[in-house]
């Protein structure tokens, strides 16, 4: 995979392009499930692990952790999946996983979703309230907090006439969110 192509794929992942994601998903699925058989992992569990690996993949693309990646996407995805097998099934003696874990040390941030339910109660309430916001607020907050665009870039993406308008819209969204949190009896 050429560097240019790799960069393009990572960019598409950052943007949340569904087609790219589907392509990666379908291209590597069979291989990963076959690989899991070596560890006597049933297909359903393998699919589960595989999906989690895809989620980690996307999140790391979004967080910029893959920007310096040298290997290709499949290798990277497999490394995450193998790591998850290693982690979930406590397979410690397998030497063949070691290289992959080494590869990942530098390019993956597992913190965010290695454990499935790490949200605090406040965060759970926030998630629920976020989902109740209008589409416009959701877009702005997603672009800013999740996709990591700065306000200038968001102004461009959503075509705000100036940054001030965007800023006050964003603060309105935050206020709305806080009101919703209040309504749910949160402490904020």
């Amino acid at each position, binding site marked *: 995979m050429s560097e240019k192509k790799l960069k393009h794929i990572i960019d598409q992942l950052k943007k949340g392009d*569904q087609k790219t994601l589907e392509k990666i998903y*379908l291209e590597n*699925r069979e291989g990963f499930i076959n690989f899991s058989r070596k560890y006597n992992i049933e297909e359903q569990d393998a699919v589960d692990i595989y999906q989690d690996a895809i989620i980690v993949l996307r999140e790391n693309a979004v967080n910029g952790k893959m920007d310096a990646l040298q290997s290709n996407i499949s290798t990277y995805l497999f490394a995450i999946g193998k790591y998850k097998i290693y982690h979930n099934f406590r397979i410690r003696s397998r030497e063949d996983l070691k290289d992959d874990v080494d590869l990942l040390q530098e390019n993956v941030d597992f913190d965010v979703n290695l454990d499935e339910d790490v949200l*605090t109660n406040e965060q759970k309430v926030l*998630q629920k309230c976020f989902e109740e916001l209008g*589409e*416009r607020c959701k*877009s702005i907050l997603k672009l800013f907090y999740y996709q990591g665009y700065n306000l200038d870039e968001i102004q461009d*993406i959503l075509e705000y006439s100036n940054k001030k308008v965007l800023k006050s819209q964003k603060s309105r969204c935050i206020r709305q969110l806080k009101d919703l949190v209040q309504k749910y009896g949160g402490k904020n």
Partner: protein
Amino acid sequence: MEEKIELIDRYFENALSPKERLEFNDLLQNDESFRKEFLFHKDLKKAISKHQNEELKETLGKFESNLNRNSRFSVIPVKWLAAASLAILLSVGSWTVKNYVFPSNERIFETYYEPYPNTVLPIVRGDEIHTIEYRAFLAYEAGEYHKAINLFNSVENSEDKYIPFYQALCMLSVDKTEEAIQMLLPLTESSPGTLQNMDCRQKATWYVGLAYLKQGKEQEAMYYMDILRKQNQELRFKKNEAEEIYELLK
């Protein structure tokens, strides 16, 4: 507080200068309201990530079920296929007839649904004017519905009814059926003639009906198709199609 928010924003933009960083750390330690505010934004980031991941997990589930649907036939051993072909030959006649006479709701939807053409803002290539609305329609015509949804959201004078109308069609195209219905329903009851070059009531009615069909809610779908098929002669938008669907659902 506004300056403090600015500082927090710059933290998330990864853009704090060394001096600002010092100030930031100082506030974090010594200013309780700042700390609380910052933690709120940090929690929000986490909550949105979780939301995004859950949404992705759902999408992956869809990829998976598409996969199962497509590969169901490929796992049958060849000799079974040979044996089964005779049976298929015998039954295919009746199957086709059945499928033709009683197609699934999904099938009816697929057959009849197509996004309404952009009749509001003609897209001229090379045009220099790039309003949000223009870009929204550009995305709509290109089938980039997610992008179009975001852009339509940002159109300032959104009391124009065609904005929610086209936005709803985007939703319908990306399987956000319930959202689409919620946006279209008020349009079905709006006063006539308010939409630029089009009367949106009939059109909204048609798409609400189709959306309900997609959700498998046949009663609701029939209700809206019934309205359309009973239109008077001057307003005959999709009158025949509605009649056909009504007959299929009856």
